[in-house]
């Protein structure tokens, strides 16, 4: 290696190599940005504390204590609260020319989406697991077996991937990073008007249809089912996840062409 010139590469990189490079950059950014790592966790713990100890007393969830109702739903949807940063980061990459640079390179478009999904899903997986641990700290206990608990956690991790892709698409459609932050608030509406925090039956009747039929409610109910060894709502939850992924991944890939 003493030559002073660069030999042009003989072939363009494959999708796997390109995706992993995209992932590597984002994980480095995540771990090297001071506070990013801790911020998601603090946010998660703070919300959980408020719901468990502040609002929890006013919510009637039948015989079981509120903590048993709240924690599974909260863990399943924590990414809806912490994932806004994904949309902002996608919008920032576009604004700062990083996306243009990627698009001018001879890499497959899908690698940009795939690499980002892998990176952000990994950091979300960490948030989900940490949030589950917080759940135990505020009084949640497994009612069923450990296997059932792990199956429920697995479903939550799948949702983490689904929500990641949705936030990527939001970032791609937002005109700038401030709007991306605003758009990610839509996720709050889906989280609140669902069975995550209160039973749907306690909502006014005009609101119940939305709460009942939007994807978050069956997704959350499926996690609660798995925890007690039932499979109720699981097929519906998996179907919603598959549908959201099959719709949003192609949208993201196509949208990157025009980013």
């Amino acid at each position, binding site marked *: 290696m003493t030559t002073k*010139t660069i*030999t042009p590469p*003989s072939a363009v990189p494959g999708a796997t190599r390109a995706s992993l490079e995209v992932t590597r950059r984002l994980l480095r950014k995540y771990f*090297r940005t001071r506070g990013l790592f801790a911020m998601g966790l603090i946010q998660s713990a703070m919300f959980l504390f408020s719901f468990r100890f502040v609002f929890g007393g006013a919510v009637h969830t039948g015989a079981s204590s509120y903590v048993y109702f709240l924690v599974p739903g909260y863990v399943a949807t924590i990414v809806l609260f912490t994932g806004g940063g994904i949309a902002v980061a996608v919008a920032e990459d576009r604004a*700062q*020319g990083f996306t243009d640079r990627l698009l*001018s390179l*001879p*890499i497959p478009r899908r690698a940009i989406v795939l690499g980002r999904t892998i990176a952000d899903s990994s950091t979300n997986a960490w948030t989900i697991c940490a949030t589950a641990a917080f759940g135990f700290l505020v009084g949640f206990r497994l009612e069923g077996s450990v296997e059932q608990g792990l199956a429920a956690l697995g479903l939550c991790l799948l949702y983490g991937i689904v929500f990641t892709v949705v936030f990527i698409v939001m970032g791609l459609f937002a005109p700038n990073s401030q709007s991306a932050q605003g758009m990610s608030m839509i996720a709050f509406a889906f989280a609140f008007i669902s069975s995550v925090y209160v039973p749907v039956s306690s909502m006014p009747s005009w609101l119940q249809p939305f709460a009942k039929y939007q994807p978050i409610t069956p997704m959350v109910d499926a996690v609660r089912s798995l925890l007690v060894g039932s499979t109720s709502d699981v097929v519906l939850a998996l179907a919603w996840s598959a549908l959201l992924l099959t719709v949003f991944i192609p949208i993201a890939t196509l949208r990157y062409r025009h980013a």
Partner: protein
Amino acid sequence: MSASDHSSPLLEATDLTVRFGQVTALDGVNLVVPPGEVLALLGPNGAGKTTLVRTIATLVGPTSGNLRVRGTDVVRDPLAVRRDIGLAGQYAAVEPTMTGRENLVMTARFFGHSKIAANHAAEIVIGQLSLEEVADRRCSTYSGGQRRRLDLGASLVGAPRLLLLDEPTTGLDPAGRSEVWDTVRTLVATGTDVVLTTHYLDEANELADRVVVIDHGRVIAYGTLSELKASIGRDVIEVTLAHGAELEHVGRILRQVTANPPTLDTSARRASASATDGTIQLAATIECLHQASIAVDEIGLRRPTLEEVFLTLTFAHPNLAPTVGSSHRGRS
């Protein structure tokens, strides 16, 4: 496979039109640029310079017409075009939380280099751009000039045949600008073709062999710098005075002699005007100054500056913004 070879024109645009909704960013551009040169795209903000660069870089598709880059059609084989080009945009697209070296290796991997080749390419570029001292520091600690240089470097690790620089020095201080200029000159010396956009006339003057002047999405002039200056067809009489107080008087003399509006620069005590018949009018000016007993520091006849050419061109063209750098359209 790419159809490109060394004999193909660097760029070949045929009726190239790009529209964004109602806005026509490029309006029937026809252009053939030979290889082996530095081409500057010049024009006011919103003229269509950046759109042309983005079309060359395959980031924007033509609405109609064709564009070939080194013989390869940007629509038919965008991947082959992307292998051939390196793009450095208006913003330094480097990851601030990574070191300079990490950024270069990453981009090299995106070009398809193996790990070893990527490290090697990064090392060479670090040397080429004199980034040795900062290469292993995070880019968030870099100065503006260092960031731009690294961004330039990132576009080089794939050994591109054509380097696209979109306003490479916008927002840099004079030291940063000359750093980037030196780097571009070094690259050109090693045989890389360069297309750069700029709204600094001195930048085009410093770096470019040929200039394309674009306004309202149309090419309004194209040629080498001296061709462009000659195309104006008029020399400029320039008088520098010993005392600034007589500047207005000299302006009147110039207007009288040349029948052209003079340009007065109070701080430099300088008056100038285009002269259709250079030497005769110069002699007449000297005679008038002598009769009026005005003390002259320096007087002479010179070729117009690029700025004067540019202003003449944009004035001569209908619907044009009168000032350089004026913003009359959102997208550039």
